[in-house]
């Protein structure tokens, strides 16, 4: 039995493991593509290459980048015309283009309706207008009822290093037992704008525990985020780091600001 085979494999595993631990974040897809196309500086190319040697996932991504250009990539997958149709229908729904091709319908000849029908139409119009007014009034009421309650918790948070003190610093923001939600108003320092934003909450150990996407800044450039009760139970228990990210057109995440939220006893 040749023991050196196992020793060699173990030695390689240890070296790769050390290299992997020293590079604790994966490569961005842009870096992988730029490395493949030779667009990185020598220093960056060396950094990326060293990471690829130690990281199976990023290495697999680069190999699949090559694969996407190959029409035979995935030839053995159970992909049928029905799958292509299903994906396409999903894409169409997402595009909001649900109209089927319309056939040509000839206009009917113009016919003048009888007077009683005209009177009925006028009465219906008045009824609809009245109903619309009532609905608008009800919507306003619903909007008022939906607004944060008078004693609802709204905290202004500023990014670390901004020199401004966030609410709740020190002993922590107190969340009442009956509070339905907590609203934070984030004041990011960054001026760059993105098509979309998302927020992620991480506990003291840095692990993500809650996330929301589809955020937009208001007219003042602030982000109002409402955290529901169900998530509060997840967030409670010390410092929470809120990380705000801008999303570019390709879905890539770019850090916009980090905020610390401290929850006190409930």
């Amino acid at each position, binding site marked *: 039995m040749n023991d050196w085979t196992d020793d060699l494999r*173990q030695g390689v595993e240890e070296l790769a493991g050390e290299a992997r631990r020293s590079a604790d974040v994966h490569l961005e897809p842009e870096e992988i593509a730029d490395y493949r196309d030779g667009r990185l500086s020598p220093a960056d190319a060396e950094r990326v290459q060293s990471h690829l040697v130690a990281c199976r*996932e990023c290495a*697999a991504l680069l190999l699949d980048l090559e694969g996407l250009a190959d029409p035979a990539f995935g030839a053995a997958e159970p992909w049928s015309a029905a799958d292509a149709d299903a994906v396409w229908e999903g894409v169409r729904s997402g595009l909001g283009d649900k109209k089927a091709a319309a056939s040509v319908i000839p206009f009917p000849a113009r016919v003048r309706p009888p007077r009683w029908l005209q009177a009925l139409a006028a009465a219906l119009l008045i009824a609809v207008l009245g109903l619309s007014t009532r609905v608008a009034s009800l919507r306003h009421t619903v909007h008022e009822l939906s607004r944060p309650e008078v004693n609802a918790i709204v905290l202004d948070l500023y990014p670390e290093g901004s020199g401004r003190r966030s609410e709740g610093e020190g002993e922590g923001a107190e969340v009442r037992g009956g509070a339905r939600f907590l609203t934070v108003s984030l004041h990011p320092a960054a001026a760059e704008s993105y098509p979309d934003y998302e927020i992620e909450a991480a506990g003291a*150990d840095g692990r993500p525990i809650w996330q929301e996407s589809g955020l937009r800044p208001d007219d003042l450039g602030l982000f109002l985020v409402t955290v529901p009760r169900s998530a509060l139970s997840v967030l409670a228990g010390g410092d929470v780091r809120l990380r705000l990210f801008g999303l570019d057109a390709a879905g890539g995440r770019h850090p916009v600001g980090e905020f610390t939220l401290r929850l006190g006893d409930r």
Partner: protein
Amino acid sequence: MADEPVQQILEALQAGASPDESFRRLCDLYGRRLYHFFSKRGFSREDCLDLTQETFLGIYRGIGSFRRDAGFETWLFKVATNAYRKRLRFRAADKRAGEEVPLEAEEGEAGPPRELPATTPQPGEEVLQKERSRVVREAIEKLPEQMRKCLLLRVYQDLKYREIAALLRLSPETVKVHLFQARRKLQQELGGYFADSLLGADEAT
């Protein structure tokens, strides 16, 4: 640069053509490849279809800003990778116990991490084993850089020559030479105590 059929489709879409015909063709061309990309990462069939759809939507939304001198597949790769990582982040956030799911947990092509055979060495053997490990590691670390990288990719990631070549931006022939020389140097250092087959002397590219 995008190849010709894709180039024509993209031109038509950027000029405002209806997506029903043009974009559908793009989905037909790349649907299976994208499905395979996600399938290799351990997603269920349903998730693969969902992620494929999400990627195409991301492509369509960004079509106006796509530069035709850039590679379409490169752009597709970026959108697909971001979609895949976003799905993993959502999964991590869904686990409300706060347990992080490392990205390596979604093993694809490389398969599960290789495990060494379980052994229960005697105390004296354990010391001997540690010493051999140290000697082997020193021998590997003494190898020239590219040779060492080829060795790591071959032994740690179990890749073929052409895959190692793609990762290190070398030719497959150069990779073969590096592995051959690495084997020879290790034999000199370790007195011929490791298997030739480990470095793929009989591998087909």
